[in-house]
């Protein structure tokens, strides 16, 4: 069997707020292989974003181990984590996190800062990718001058331009209409076909029809995996959020 690209072992995350312990994630275990697509379902506030931030080394687990490409993330120095985030793991944030004072092309080329040295080459690559994503006429627009779908595409372009081995996407189609959401899915799928990267998508409910190798469900801090049959049924239903409690009941 192949070595997993990412291995999550017994991961827990606890927050302290107002002298209260809040256990968001509890003994999470799963792995991701190269080229694999995984859908993570979970209601709002279940800890999906927290899990994603730990997978890319932006946060660290309270307990448990995360290995990326055989490297134990908790033992990495800040510099090593920077390198991993820059070259191997890309994250698309739920709220996009584009720099408001930078144009679309500047936001995208920023991701190449320590990868390419020539400013001209960086600009060329960023422009080419944005044009491929249908944003040729929006290159020099600031994020607040773009529609939600366009912003989403810029955020995805910023992630894909670095050609990461693992893409983490947090609600990538959350606030989009069906047509735009389909476009986003198409973009991610085409990239995966080209590069054999792994895709880990977190969503709280509806997601466009796309085949995922596995579907994980996060509920009350614990993770469950749906069977293939149930997974197909579930994906057909875009109202999973409403059925989630029924699905998980014994």
């Amino acid at each position: 069997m192949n070595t997993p690209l990412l291995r999550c072992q017994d991961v827990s995350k606890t927050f302290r707020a107002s002298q209260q312990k809040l256990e968001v994630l509890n003994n999470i275990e799963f792995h991701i292989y190269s080229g694999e697509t995984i859908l993570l379902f979970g209601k709002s506030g279940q800890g999906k974003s927290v899990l994603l931030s730990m997978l890319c080394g932006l946060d660290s687990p309270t307990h448990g181990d995360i290995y990326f490409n055989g490297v134990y993330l908790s033992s990495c120095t800040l510099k090593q984590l920077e390198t991993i985030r820059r070259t191997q793991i890309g994250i698309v944030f739920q709220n996009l996190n584009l720099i408001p004072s930078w144009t679309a092309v500047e936001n995208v080329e920023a991701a190449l800062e320590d990868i390419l040295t020539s400013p001209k080459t960086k600009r060329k690559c960023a422009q080419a990718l944005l044009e491929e994503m249908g944003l040729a006429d929006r290159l020099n627009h600031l994020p607040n001058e773009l529609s939600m779908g366009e912003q989403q595409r810029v955020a995805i372009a910023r992630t894909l331009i670095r050609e990461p081995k693992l893409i983490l996407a947090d609600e990538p189609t959350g606030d989009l209409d069906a047509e735009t959401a389909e476009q986003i899915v198409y973009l991610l799928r085409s990239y995966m076909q080209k590069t054999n990267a792994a895709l880990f998508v977190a969503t709280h409910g509806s997601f466009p029809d796309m085949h995922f190798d596995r579907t994980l469900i996060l509920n009350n801090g614990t993770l469950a995996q749906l069977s293939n049959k149930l997974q197909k049924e579930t994906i057909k239903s875009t109202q999973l959020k409403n059925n989630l409690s029924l699905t998980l009941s014994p």
Partner: protein
Amino acid sequence: MWKYAWREIIRRKGRSIAAICSYALAVMIFSVLVSLLQYSERSQYKTLYNTGTHFIAFSPVCCNLPLLKDETHEGFWANGSRSSIMPINLIDTIKKLPTVRDASPLLMFRFKDSTNNVGIIAAGFDPENTISVANTTCASTDLVSGRFITSHDTNAIILEESFALSRKITVDKSLIVAGTSLLVIGIVNAGIRPVKADIYMSLTQAERIMSQRTWNPIKDEMNIILIESANAKAHEQAVQDVINILGKDKIVSSYSCHNPAVEAININHQLLWLGIIFITIFITVHVIRNHYASIVERKREIGILQSIGWSRKKIVLVVGNELILQALLGGILGGYLAIVYQIAIPKSKSSCHILCAIDSFGNALIGFGIVFFIAALSALILAFCFVRFQPIKNLKTI
């Protein structure tokens, strides 16, 4: 990295202009304070120079000297009493003292006056000396009428105005002293000086006339030493050094207002330093607060850059450079305004005495340097502090 900084400044105009203006103001304030300090230094020197950086030394005697022809009515005179004469080569020894700027000999003699019993006090000095003589006796600037005496003048004298008025003598008239007719070439009002006489003449002239009243000729001798301290702060030490050379039986006389003047000026000076320290602290706090607000505002952006793999060093440089660039622009503007201000206000107006003290490019540069240093240091430290946070803390929520 500067391109990112410049981009931020251009695109966030409001914030950048506010920051640049605050730096400009800080540099202006600093430039004014530095100018004030320099002004205070100059004033201190000037005041103390006029109140006490010069003094006289002489040797009083209790009885009449045997060399005098008329021991009863005449004699060498200093500070209202009889004094003895000293060799003129002492001047060279005193001049070598590091605390002494200049020293000059003076002969002062009380002649018997045939017209009344008051007597005439005559002083002979080196008219070419513009340092110790001018400060302790009289100077050409004290002239009321006529001209000042030169070392080439023979049988010529200048009179103290009060003496001239009491005797009703004017310029170009003659006065007989020790049987010699002397032409009055000028009248002075010397004001309050350590050495006051009725008539003044050159040292060679004085030697000649005074020799007529002594059994032995006066040559290379003096009875008063006129001394100028190296500076106001060295004055006390200069007095002590001269006493050490002349011996304890000699008298050193200086202005009594010197010490109170030193105290008063030191208080002003210390207050100014206190003001500078206070303003420095205020500007430092203001700059740090400004930078802190700016970085907090960009905290999320720092998190974003961290999440896409930017190195900490690069983020520190991007954020720090933006703040440094603001300080640089503000500093240049403030320095420029300080110089323009100085040029715009004519120095002759007494009402702008203090503000007109911004008199050099150097002051603007000092103000700029201090503010820029504070700004650059705090920018880099604060940026580094924020970059050290876990990215998630900067992003807050993903």
